[in-house]
């Protein structure tokens, strides 16, 4: 307050956050973690792979966060917010791991900007640089829609994380080992609601089936293989999603069978988020998520 710049806010910033009930600073979530890239693994490919898994979690988390205060009852509102928080935590580690593997992927920021690497990746990339699957980004619908979206997403993500626990990259293996425990709860939540809505009223079933039909063309992307995924799978660091297909199909068929719902027969949507081709809905999501950070690239919080 008394310094020559005279900002009344200066006293609120700085290293000591002890005046706050909860800490304000977002330090590197990988502080003290060994982020050495394993021998024989291409740094840029590893970073791109971390972006794929991190962007899936970040964008899905952002869509789930939009549900806050809009769910049918308090318990489900809290459930969706908790799931979003778990995925945001996974996104932070994965984006930080991407930046540690190849800082060349970081977008340019004004000199002296205090924006940490994970935030630079989340808030300062354009749509074409995001690698998430499109299932994560399409606009929200009704409660049936979020149940179907989360079921399709969590079934594939759990199958992926189960395999990623054996990654030759110690950071990815650790993120996966923890994520498996979390996503198991996400998948169970979605599967139970799928069953409940399918066997509820005529209206709840109609809405569920409508959402499944609308989202099904985005499902194959979850088990499609990008060249980066294949290359890292060969290096013992990543997972080729094609190896997850049997397990993903078996779990989905189990849910469909117990719910009395027929597996939809619709062709996949052309294009793919892994290569930066996104839906029209994505621009609106990014605008809302990024606007404040982009307006103040040198801001301190």
């Amino acid at each position, binding site marked *: 307050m008394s310094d020559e710049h005279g900002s009344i806010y200066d006293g609120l910033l700085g290293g000591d*956050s002890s005046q706050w009930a909860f800490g304000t600073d977002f330090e590197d979530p990988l*502080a003290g973690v060994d982020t050495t890239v394993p021998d024989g693994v291409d740094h840029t490919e590893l970073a791109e792979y971390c972006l794929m898994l991190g962007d899936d979690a970040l964008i899905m988390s952002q869509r789930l966060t939009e549900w806050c205060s809009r769910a049918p009852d308090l318990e489900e509102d809290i459930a969706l917010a908790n799931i979003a928080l778990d995925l945001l935590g996974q996104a932070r580690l994965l984006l930080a791991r991407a930046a540690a593997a190849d800082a060349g992927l970081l977008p340019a920021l004004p000199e002296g900007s205090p924006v940490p690497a994970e935030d630079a990746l989340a808030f300062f990339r354009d749509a074409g640089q995001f690698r998430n699957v499109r299932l994560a980004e399409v606009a929200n619908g009704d409660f049936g829609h979020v149940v179907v979206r989360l079921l399709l997403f969590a079934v594939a993500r759990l199958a992926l994380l189960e395999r990623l626990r054996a990654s030759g990259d110690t950071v990815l293996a650790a993120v996966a080992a923890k994520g498996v425990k979390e996503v198991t709860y996400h998948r169970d*939540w979605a599967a*139970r609601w799928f*069953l409940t809505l399918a066997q509820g009223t005529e209206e709840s079933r109609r809405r569920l089936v409508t959402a499944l039909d609308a989202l099904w063309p985005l499902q194959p992307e979850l088990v499609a293989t990008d060249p980066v995924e294949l290359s890292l799978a060969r290096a013992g660091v990543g997972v080729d999603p094609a190896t997850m297909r049997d397990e993903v199909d078996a*779990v989905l068929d189990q849910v469909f069978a117990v719910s009395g719902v027929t597996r939809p027969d619709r062709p996949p949507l052309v294009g793919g988020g892994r290569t930066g081709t996104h839906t029209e809905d994505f621009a609106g999501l990014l605008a809302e998520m990024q606007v404040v950070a982009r307006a103040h690239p040198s801001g301190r919080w």
Partner: protein
Amino acid sequence: MNAAEPAGAERAPARVRERAAEVAAQVRDPEMPMLTLADLGVLRGVHVTRTADGHEVVIASITPTYTGCPAMATMRDDLVHRLNDAGFPHVEVRVVLDPPWSSDWISERGRAALREAGLSAPGPARRTSGPIALTLGPARSAPACPRCGSTATRLTSEFGATACKALYTCTDCLEPFEHVKEI
């Protein structure tokens, strides 16, 4: 992976390390203050090294209960402040991700403190190697009511006020209660 003694630096005397570890172990969890970080099992190690110019640096390692746990920043700040107050001006807090935290690491004293505060302590965590089976019903064994001890309890939601808790209701005394989840 980082709970090990840092290489290169000189070790401080054992009694200094013990005192730092004692101070760190007393820091409480910000969201479940009936538990210390040691009882919760998130404090993974405390080491003290002596730098070339004679400073003692305390290195405390913590691991998140859940990946997105928003209390990590507060735990870090609290560790730094308590250690500063105890006469350790140089403190470094490191994150350890491997092995992942398990509710099995909550100590017996921690479990007693949870029950004392009206929370239900977690049962044994599920084994999670290989493909994980879908759980469509509330198949996990229901916890006993921490107030009346009845086992006639019903799951309200597997997600609660913090990432690590689920909500249950006792169908005998009709009280709702929080249960620390098995992970």
